[in-house]
């Protein structure tokens, strides 16, 4: 099956007074129908910029300087504004991190879900409303006939995120981008939202790009993982491989720096010291051609400080590092 989304060598730059600063460099990945890829990394790594570039929503000053973003074969990076508007909310849509700020407080949730249906599918007010009720039911909101006339402030955080999902999926998009869809929610509700996303995905066959900073939380629902650091993809591969045999020191650090819950017998053992990654992500404009992680990396030596890291790997697992680490995680 061909890919729904195929990104090749995407480069995004920021125009600043002294010159042009790269924000994303040579990013490539693709997602097939019904599959999910996770973009992982700290803030400032370019995860959200990637999402905005795909949606054609880059802020002022940022521009796509090279590469292509193909949505079912059509390069959206080169489309004019009104052609993009035809796509957004229709063939591709996005779920934002904070449902309270992403919903319009002065319209009912029914109006907001119907808007996309009426715009893109030319439905009448009445049919759109019926479809909106069906969507609310699909995202498991109780009493959807009444909730459709509710305003966002009348709903809880979890409900609002369900409304966002209903809105994003109303036109059965081919591609869904979810930017940290659960960070604003409680843990038990997070699990519900991920289950819902997966069900809806199986139903519609949508390709999902899931942006997250916690790899293990999304391991169940993703097929592939791309780890970003300072605007570059440093490691990419199937989820199980990345989780169990990460090779890039940054990926290994990310996984080791989260205290993982130990249950049952393992809980009796005292906690091991948590590994930390010293320092922080270099700012925009402070990134040279060399490995961006080298200043924080305990293995950095010799070639790391002389030339950009080569991309190596077998099959689907690729890593950009001079000193990829062995199997044992």
């Amino acid at each position, binding site marked *: 099956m061909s890919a729904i989304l195929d990104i090749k060598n995407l480069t995004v730059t920021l125009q600043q007074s002294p010159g042009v600063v790269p924000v994303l460099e040579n990013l490539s990945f693709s997602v097939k129908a019904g599959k999910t890829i996770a973009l992982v990394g700290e803030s400032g790594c370019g995860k959200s910029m990637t999402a905005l570039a795909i949606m054609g929503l880059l802020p002022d000053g940022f521009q796509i300087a090279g590469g292509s973003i193909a949505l079912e074969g059509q390069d959206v990076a080169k489309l004019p504004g009104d052609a993009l508007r035809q796509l957004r909310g229709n063939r591709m849509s996005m779920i934002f991190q904070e449902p309270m700020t992403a919903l319009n407080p002065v319209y009912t949730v029914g109006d907001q879900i119907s808007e996309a249906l009426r715009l893109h599918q030319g439905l009448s007010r009445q049919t759109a409303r019926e479809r909106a009720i069906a969507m609310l039911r699909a995202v498991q909101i109780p009493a959807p006939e009444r909730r459709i006339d509710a305003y966002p402030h009348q709903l809880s955080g979890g409900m609002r995120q369900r409304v966002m999902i209903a809105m994003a999926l109303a036109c059965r998009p081919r591609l869904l981008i979810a930017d940290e869809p659960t960070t604003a929610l409680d*843990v038990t509700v997070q*699990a519900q939202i991920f289950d819902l996303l997966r069900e809806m995905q199986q139903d519609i066959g949508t390709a999902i790009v899931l942006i997250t900073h916690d790899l293990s939380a999304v391991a*169940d629902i993703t097929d592939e993982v791309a780890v970003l650091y300072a605007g570059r993809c440093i490691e990419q591969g199937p989820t199980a491989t990345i989780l169990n045999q990460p090779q890039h020191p940054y990926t290994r650090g990310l996984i080791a*720096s*989260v*205290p993982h*819950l130990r249950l049952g017998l393992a809980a009796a053992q005292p*906690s091991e010291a948590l590994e930390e*990654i*010293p320092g922080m992500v270099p700012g925009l404009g402070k990134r040279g051609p060399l490995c961006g992680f080298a200043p924080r990396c305990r293995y950095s030596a010799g070639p790391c400080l002389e030339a950009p890291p080569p991309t190596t790997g077998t099959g689907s697992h690729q890593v950009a590092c001079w000193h990829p680490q062995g199997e044992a995680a």
Partner: protein
Amino acid sequence: MSNDTLLEVNDLKVHFPAGRAGAFGQRLTVHAVDGVSFRVPRQSTFGIVGESGSGKSTTAQAIMRLAPITAGNIRLGETDLTTLRGDALRKARRHFQMIFQDPYSALNPRRRAGDLIREPLDLLEVGSADDRAERLESLLRVVGLPPEAAMLFPHQFSGGQRQRLVIARALSTQPDLIVCDEPVSALDVAIQAQILNLLKRLQRDHGLTYVFISHDLGVVQYLCDQIAVMYLGQIVEQAPSAQLFAGPRHPYTWSLMTAAAPPGGLRQSLKQRFSLRGEPPSPINPPAGCRFAARCPFADERCRKETPQLSVAGSGHFVACHKTEEVSAAGRSIMAAA
């Protein structure tokens, strides 16, 4: 009270008025914290976990005397914090300090980092001006910031560094107790580890006692000796950390653990038995009977009528549930199969 207990909370209640149901209706009350008791031994860490609305932050604020206490009392060492007023309370504050969740809003953007850290010392008039300057330098060193940081403004720091400033400020008065309200949840994962390790080291070096509020079970397990699980204003389960994670006895604890369990077969089978439907009910006039009954996969008639009391379930292990036998048996069989 025994000598090694630093903080003692007895039947704490914090209720807030929430207007009326309609113009002439009944007065409504938010039962934010509804009868919470626990003891924290010196130099240990007491974790409180729960979802938003469970009352964990309100408990923290009540301990800090930042929330109105409706009933119950809080003792820190020999002092009853509940009855302190005015100047006596202000003086006592040097013994208990707080680390806030959001280091962006916890620091005044118009003051320099050094002034912010010194402020508690200046206000409480601790030592001479020279002492305070010296203390500032050592505090910055302790939290891993260079001495030049004192001259900078908060916006010149990253999130992790700001949290270090907040920690330095909390440490400045050499408190016995530090209440940490979700100190790492606003930070990036890689930075979280730095702050957690710093908190651990500070506890060891300075003999600190922590009350640690979090919704992240992994973090709580890493840091805490004792853990209380709160739901809708009440403690539903409390146990030493190792014991709690080896075998919880309350269905809510199981569901929190399910949500945080490492990915794999175990999480899948836990999910089938313990995952929750819906969201916590409103803390305004909470339901009769067990407050968790509406979401509990084990609940029956009795749970909806009779409120379960916190009772002993092992050494130092307390649970408030009618179905605890059935719940632990279900959990044990899943864990054994994995």
